[in-house]
């Protein structure tokens, strides 16, 4: 996938000017938030908060001994007939998949949703090697027709409205145009069914890797995941190494918090625990099962200030609750992962210098942190990245100078008093009769879209001092 994270501002600007996108986002933005709130209330608010804490603890326990749990997973999975492979980066991930294709002579891959596949650019690699990738998650399928990347990690096509999908279906399915959702869904099923039946490779992600049993757990709502992992003769699951958890008991805890946080569901429509290929006497399942454990930058987070980010279970709650994401949409972020979690992960994965705006593109309002099912302190992590940017002198010169000047002034009370005395008068004068300033000098961006309220004209400090003097004078 092309990286455009350096152009957050321009992309956000385009998104703001796109009336259709704005209306789509306004219509759907609140839905997930309300559903999560209802699910939390139904579970019991206090109990849900305990569940979050327990989930965070499970993820921490796994991350503290990540290597050991991964080796345990490999051992248990191997014992049950799964081939476990390791990939250091995107390139190696693609190579591993292509080698599997070559080994088994595979020509068509059906895919269930996998963000890691986006990270690795797997579809492009498959197509280039003559293996046809077919996305079968409805949202991903729509985006494959549109040749667009996802804009949300669990609702990839949330930026598309009904009309756009109708247009795409009409163009690619060669059937009469419809805008009846039930009919369109049926149409997609009919188009995808032969693909399911003719594919020889199924590619999935993995929501969790269970170390004690060597299982891959997958949650979906459309049932496509189940077909992808059982119909073709080869199944390849690709996941990040951080997805490992110790036990099935842990899985049960995490699968209570995941659907409620993501879509507000008590449980997903389909919850699969995949352990090894088809065994003797099994009716379904692939002849070969592979799991590719991908690093692609994740080990850089282990043991560091940002380790908590690896707890992430990819529910999307942070972006659902993020007012910036809800204003500019996922494509503005310019790479695979948008919203708050993306603003932490993207700089880590592609380099801080290649995503300068992302750690800054948050108001630090904290809505993501309180919604996060595994209690990742996202604002604190963004702040840490901002510190790294300052330390590495990656912020613009003018910004650094402004901050330095402010600090120098604020640590010198007398000078500060003088400067604010002048400032208060200027901010009063500029406001004129309206009491609002429509253009500030040296303004990097405030008055472009709003006024700046005029000041009263004197500082509190001045007025308080003169009041004290007066009251002293008036005392007998």
């Amino acid at each position, binding site marked *: 996938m092309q990286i455009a994270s350096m152009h957050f501002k321009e992309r956000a600007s385009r998104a*703001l000017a796109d009336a259709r996108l704005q209306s789509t986002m306004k219509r759907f933005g609140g839905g997930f938030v309300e559903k999560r709130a209802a699910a939390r209330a139904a579970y019991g608010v206090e109990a849900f908060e305990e569940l979050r804490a327990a989930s965070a603890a499970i993820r921490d326990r796994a991350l503290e001994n990540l290597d050991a749990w991964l080796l345990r997973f490999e051992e248990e999975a191997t014992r049950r007939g799964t081939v476990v492979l390791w990939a250091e980066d995107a390139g190696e991930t693609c190579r591993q998949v292509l080698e599997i294709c070559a080994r088994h002579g595979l020509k068509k891959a059906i895919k269930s949703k996998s963000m890691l596949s986006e990270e690795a650019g797997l579809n492009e690699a498959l197509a280039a090697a003559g293996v046809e990738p077919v996305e079968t998650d409805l949202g991903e399928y729509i985006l494959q027709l549109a040749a667009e990347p996802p804009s949300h990690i669990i609702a990839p096509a949330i930026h598309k409205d009904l009309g756009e999908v109708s247009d795409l279906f009409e163009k690619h399915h060669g059937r009469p145009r419809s805008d009846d959702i039930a009919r369109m869904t049926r149409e997609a099923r009919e188009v995808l069914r032969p693909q399911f039946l003719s594919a020889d490779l199924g590619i999935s992600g993995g929501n969790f890797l269970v170390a004690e049993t060597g299982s891959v757990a997958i949650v979906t709502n459309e049932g496509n995941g189940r077909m992808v992992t059982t119909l073709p003769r080869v199944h390849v699951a690709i996941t990040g190494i951080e997805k490992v958890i110790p036990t099935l008991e842990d899985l049960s805890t995490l699968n209570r918090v995941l659907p409620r946080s993501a879509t507000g569901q008590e449980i997903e429509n389909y919850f699969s625990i995949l352990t090894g290929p088809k065994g003797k006497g099994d009716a379904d399942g692939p002849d070969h099962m592979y799991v590719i454990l991908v690093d692609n930058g994740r080990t850089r987070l282990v043991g560091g200030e940002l380790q908590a980010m690896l707890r992430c279970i990819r529910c999307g709650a942070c972006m659902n609750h993020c007012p910036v994401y809800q204003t500019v949409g996922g494509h503005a972020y310019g790479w695979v992962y948008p919203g708050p979690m993306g603003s932490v992960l993207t700089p880590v994965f592609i380099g801080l210098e290649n995503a300068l705006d992302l750690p800054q593109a948050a108001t630090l309002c904290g809505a993501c942190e309180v919604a996060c099912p595994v209690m990742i302190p996202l604002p604190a992590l963004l702040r840490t990245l901002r510190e790294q940017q300052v330390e590495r002198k990656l912020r613009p010169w003018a910004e650094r100078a402004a901050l330095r000047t402010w600090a120098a002034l604020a640590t010198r009370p007398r000078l500060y008093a003088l400067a604010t005395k002048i400032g208060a008068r200027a901010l009063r004068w500029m406001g004129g009769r309206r009491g609002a300033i429509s253009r500030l000098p040296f303004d990097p961006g405030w008055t472009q879209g709003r006024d700046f309220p005029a000041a009263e004209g004197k500082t509190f400090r001045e007025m308080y001092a003169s009041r004290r003097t007066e009251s002293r004078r008036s005392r007998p």
Partner: protein
Amino acid sequence: MSVDGRVGLLVTCLIDLVRPRIGFAALRLLEAAGCEVTVPASQTCCGQPGWNSGDRPSARALARKVIEEFEPCAYVVAPSGSCAGMVRVHYPALFPDDGAWLERAERLAAKTWELTDFLVHVARFDQIPGEYAGTVTYHDSCAGLRELGVQQQPRALMAKMRGVQLKEMREAETCCGFGGTFSVKFGEISAAMAKTKCDHVHASGAGAVVLGDLGCMLNIEGKLRRMGDDKTRVLHVAELLTWEK
């Protein structure tokens, strides 16, 4: 009920510069609540701009200054959730490897309060001096809400006041788009977020939007005025509680 020990008023840099009357309103409320209030004259800024911009050294320098200025007080009160949150939540995080300063930061953090939180939970204040006639809607400022749990306190105080009719708006808890330096680094996005907030204010039908932080105030008021709305009042909760008809 009176409060034991002196209360230090952390005026905040934005109130000092732009809206001193809010500082005086806070002072009046604290005195009405029976507090002996002191206003350290050398105070400037709590260090939040540096802290949120990744400039830890300058945030530390300003934190040390605030700690020294307010240490003698029994309580520190700020008419701002974000400045109070800076002291209470973030000051200790500034000195993880500096034992002496960490201890001083923690001690100050433990006695620092947002104004309405202090009035309700420490001073147990209910003799609201102001009187107002009209409808208001309340915007929950992010840091106050999520760092300090300020949500019911301002509403409880407003409920005790004569003439105030609260009309809640949709998404009162959603950020207005200020975000400190975010508001200038990403002016366009910030203003778009403010627009959403102002639309909710308008939809509530209230004649005034009340809030507890100057940042949000400048943002929301600035956007309302740019939208051509010169009528809707934007009031700090301290202003409302001391309003004279």
